[in-house]
């Protein structure tokens, strides 16, 4: 038996979503069919509304529904530290840690020449402009600024981190890279050799 056209179309659209294969798409389609009309409308409405109201923050490129994102608007945050991440989801992750009270910059990707993602495809230009713009007294303000490179530890994330570092070097900012190490609460014997090796290499003075 062939599925009705409307169903086929729905499955096709759903399977274009990231992480959704044909089987999950089919399951989602059947689920949607089983819901009431109001519920489906609510989902559709939420999707449309999100699309209409959300945009990128013009300063840090995080996703926002206001002109400036909540972090950029918050004057109580440390304006002297900018954390560079690959994806908007990374901002949420770092915010959840509660350890960081500075600003962000979202690159929206990592360098991956094999997928055609070069320096022009990631949003770094905005960061350079941001740093240049804040430089009011050339003697010491730039030196105070710290940029934390928090791209992932994949091959692509590392290359991106190195690229950003090189771009920032001439601006005289203090560039740091997040530490590699053991997951907190994890037993040593379960850590893989590479992580453990990095953790030993990056050890700190006991406090």
């Amino acid at each position, binding site marked *: 038996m062939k599925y009705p056209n409307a169903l086929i179309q729905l499955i096709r659209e759903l399977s274009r979503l990231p992480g959704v294969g044909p089987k999950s798409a089919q399951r989602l389609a059947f689920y949607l069919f089983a819901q009431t009309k109001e519920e489906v409308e609510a989902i559709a409405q939420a999707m449309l509304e999100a699309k209409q109201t959300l945009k990128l923050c013009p300063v840090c490129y995080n996703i926002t529904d206001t002109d400036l994102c909540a972090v950029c608007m918050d004057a109580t945050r440390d304006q002297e530290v900018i954390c560079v991440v690959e994806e908007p989801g990374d901002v949420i992750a770092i915010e959840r840690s509660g350890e960081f009270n500075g600003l962000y910059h979202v690159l929206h990707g990592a*360098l*991956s*020449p*094999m997928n055609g993602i*070069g*320096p022009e495809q990631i949003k770094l230009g905005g960061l350079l402009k941001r740093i240049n713009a804040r430089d009011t007294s050339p003697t010491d303000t730039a030196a105070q600024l710290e940029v934390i490179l928090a791209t992932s530890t994949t*091959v*692509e994330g*590392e*290359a991106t981190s*190195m*690229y950003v570092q*090189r771009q920032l070097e001439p601006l005289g900012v203090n560039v740091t890279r997040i530490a590699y190490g053991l997951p907190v609460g994890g037993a040593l014997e379960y850590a*893989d*050799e*590479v992580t453990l*090796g990095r953790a030993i290499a990056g050890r700190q003075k006991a406090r």
Partner: protein
Amino acid sequence: MILRSLQTLHYRNLEPTRLAFQGGVTAIVGGNGQGKTNVLEAAFLVLTGVLDVTRVETVIRLGEKEGFVGAELERDDGITKLEVGLAPGRKAAKVDGARVKTADLARHASAVLIRPEDSELVHGSPGDRRAFLDALVSRMSPRYALALQSYERVVTQRNAVLKQTHEDWMLEIWDAKLSELGAEIMRLRRRAVTRLKTLSNDAHATLTGNGKPLEIALVETARLDDYGAHILEKRREERARGSTVLGPHRDDLEIKLAGLPAADYASRGEARTIALALRKAEYDLLSQKFGEPPVLLIDDFTAELDSSRREFLLEMASLAPQAIVTGTEAAPGAARLYSIHAGALESKQSALFVAGAA
């Protein structure tokens, strides 16, 4: 270690069954095309995570979407349950019910598979020999497996840069990782080859009765001590070719027999002897690494017509805690015997058992 049971579902032509195994030599007997090799291939997959096919779907029975191989492995410290799920384009592994990367199966189990086509290692391309070396070192060192995976990715990314732009700084971003990972791979390979060399020489001397001496050596393309500078020297050549011209992905494991390259000068028989010596060395290396010998899988010992090699194979099998040996006739000395017909295995009483009862 001892493979206690092997279970397959929709795996090639094998009928879904649970096979029980014990220590000692198990013979699997059947004609051509009945599925002898498939049993060993499935066992090797679940014990190492390695499946030597280009597309996973080729091992899933025609008309089925997914396949499965499960095993119970007895080691000195207890019984481990290993599972591999197969679907088009992917493999998923579990150890004692917990998801792991397929390559991580090799942390928990080990097996050595000896096949008639092993001699291609000697006459084949440098790529074949690199694959042999990479597979071996990856199983000895998970760090190597990770480094190799990242290294190959860096090479792919870097080659894309070489084809796309002429700006040096774009390459430099990848060069740092390339030399860091490349150097680590070279160091780990050197360490492994030193040990492989001694062990394969010994095995080869035994096999040939101290005939022509075997020499294996790494032929490296990059200079380990100044890797970074070496990359810079090759800039023009890399630009011209649009690819990364030096590093572990271009190295070879050179095999020489009495001083001459075996790839060009070894006869077919000599190549088989060399390949067998390398497998024996692999077996010994993995035994040392795990502190107990791997499961030994010998495919079609009957294809080996040379008496010295055949004796060597059968002796290896009889000395191993466990060996599963296929052939068109039963391996001599087998404690247990299975016959295989059209993918269905049937337990037979072994000749030894019958003789003992009589």
